[in-house]
């Protein structure tokens, strides 16, 4: 019994980060029809900025918690700048051009990875523990640190869901995703909405990176591992579908924690792939996707 609770807890804490990551992917796909291969680089950059700047802020005498919050803000600002630059100089010209934008994003991903390795060196960085202590529920253990980070991730995800579901901006994003030409005929500024959607997606990847940085080893290529799982999650759930991204991410996290416990991580990744194949065989556009 305890082991099942523990596995469930593990899945949820992995899943929370995947959800943020794949929500960004699916949102960008929804509004711009862009499969952004460079999405993992936002994630890497946020984690790297925090790993580098946190010790620096602490060196100035800031308490650990405050230093982390400041580092997070700095990381998100840097990621937002990168996203804005990528949009302005690249993706703006490739909206709705799925192949062109994908090729561009893959070039950007490679280029940025090379630049990160040069700038940050290939070294692995580990952050100091922010919150000490463990929590035990029903025989399952989780560190307070992971619990808090997980809670923040869930709050962000709910915030996004609420934004999409019930604000003016969310309605605009959904309208554009549904049929951008009809939206433009109604006088909606498509390009502005697309840019806002892209930047929100960017920030979500940055937030995922920032939340994961304290509980993992940060390297310049950390984003790649998340990218493939994020893609599997959105393909299973259906590209462009918000609930699909959440369901897909949780499914992937469940497979990862159960498969990783009983077998090993590689077997878990192979299992994910088999499940994607099965889903595509039954529904070629994912569980909740429509053509």
């Amino acid at each position: 019994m305890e082991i099942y609770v523990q596995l469930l807890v593990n899945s949820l804490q992995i899943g929370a980060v995947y959800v943020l990551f794949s929500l960004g992917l699916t949102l960008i796909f929804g509004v711009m029809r862009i499969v952004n291969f460079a999405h993992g680089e936002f994630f890497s950059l946020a984690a790297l900025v925090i790993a580098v700047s946190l010790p620096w802020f602490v060196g100035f005498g800031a308490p650990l918690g405050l230093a982390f919050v400041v580092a997070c803000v700095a990381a998100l600002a840097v990621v937002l700048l990168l996203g804005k630059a990528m949009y302005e100089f690249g993706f703006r010209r490739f909206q709705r051009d799925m192949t062109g934008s994908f090729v561009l994003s893959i070039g950007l991903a490679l280029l940025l990875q090379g630049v990160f390795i040069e700038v940050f060196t290939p070294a692995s960085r580990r952050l100091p523990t922010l919150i000490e202590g463990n929590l035990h529920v029903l025989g399952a253990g989780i560190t307070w640190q992971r619990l808090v980070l997980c809670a923040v991730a869930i709050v962000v995800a709910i915030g996004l869901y609420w934004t999409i579901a019930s604000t003016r901006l969310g309605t605009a994003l959904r309208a554009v995703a549904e049929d951008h030409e009809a939206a433009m005929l109604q006088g909606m500024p498509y390009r502005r909405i697309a840019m806002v959607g892209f930047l929100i997606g960017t920030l979500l990847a940055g937030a995922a990176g920032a939340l994961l940085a304290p509980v993992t080893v940060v390297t310049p290529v950390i984003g790649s591992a998340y990218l493939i799982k994020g893609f599997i999650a959105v393909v299973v759930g259906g590209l462009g579908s918000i609930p699909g991204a959440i369901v897909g991410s949780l499914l992937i996290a469940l497979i990862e924690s159960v498969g990783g416990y009983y077998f090993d991580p590689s077997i878990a990744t192979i299992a994910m792939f088999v499940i994607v194949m099965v889903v595509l065989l039954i529904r070629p556009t994912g569980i909740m996707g429509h053509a």
Partner: protein
Amino acid sequence: MRDGRVTALAAGAALVVASAFVRSDFVAMLFVWVAVNVLLTASFRFVTLIGELNFAIAGFVGLGAYAAGCATTMLDAPFVVSLAAGAAAAGLVSLAFGWVTLRSKGPYFLLISFAFTEVLRLVYTQTSAIGGNSGLVGIFPPAWLTGYYPATVLALVLAGLWVLHRLENSDFGRILVAIRNNDLIVQSVGLDVHRTKVLCLAVSSAFAGLGGALLAHANNVISPGDFGFLLAVFTLAYLKVGGEGHFAGSIVGATLLTLLAQYALGFGAFEHVFYGGAIVLVVLLMPEGIVGRWAAWRARRAGAAHARGPEA
């Protein structure tokens, strides 16, 4: 067009003969790498005829390399049989893979093909019979080919290019392009779109497998890391730089980038920056690629000459 083909054939034959006289090991390897990369890029391009980006190509190159490597090292199979095994393994697996995945298209297909490559890589690392993480060693070309291996590779690659070119300009090739333009119309005239797509992928993958088999025998050692998705991304870079609209694009792009990469090798994370930068620059500044730009320039010049009328 006729004399273009004759020129290409003559140039190819000259290269094959020239490579037989190469005595420097490095230059010989360069011949092999360029030739294999050209074949891989042409195979990758063949699937773009139906409008799909096939990132599983790296997986199929790996399958070809491992199948040929196993045949040569474990079964002592003759060289020709090893090559055939490589091409057949990749082709057959791609039939099954394509049958399932080609029902979806566009972003779904390319993401799945990307995942397939990564999963195959994981499978190799998990299989100790084929060397696991450290790979398979001792894959040598047969003794009777000593000194002539680059020439053999070049000749096989030229034959492969010829087949792909013929297929592209046959009725089959026209159906492929029609599927890219509008698959519903192709379906409506009674052609089996799905089966055609699967066949297209299988042809491309068989050549990718052949490329892998040739590469394995050239490098003598293969490991799972050689066949990650980076290989597919490099292939994409070759095609984009050369220009995907023309058959010659894969030849020009793969040759140019492979040679440039050798020339500039050894700047740390350079490989990422080099290929990434090449893709970004070409997509932003020259989306039609080198050959596309060249063809447009020639067409413009011809148009200008035509407008001027015959010279008096």
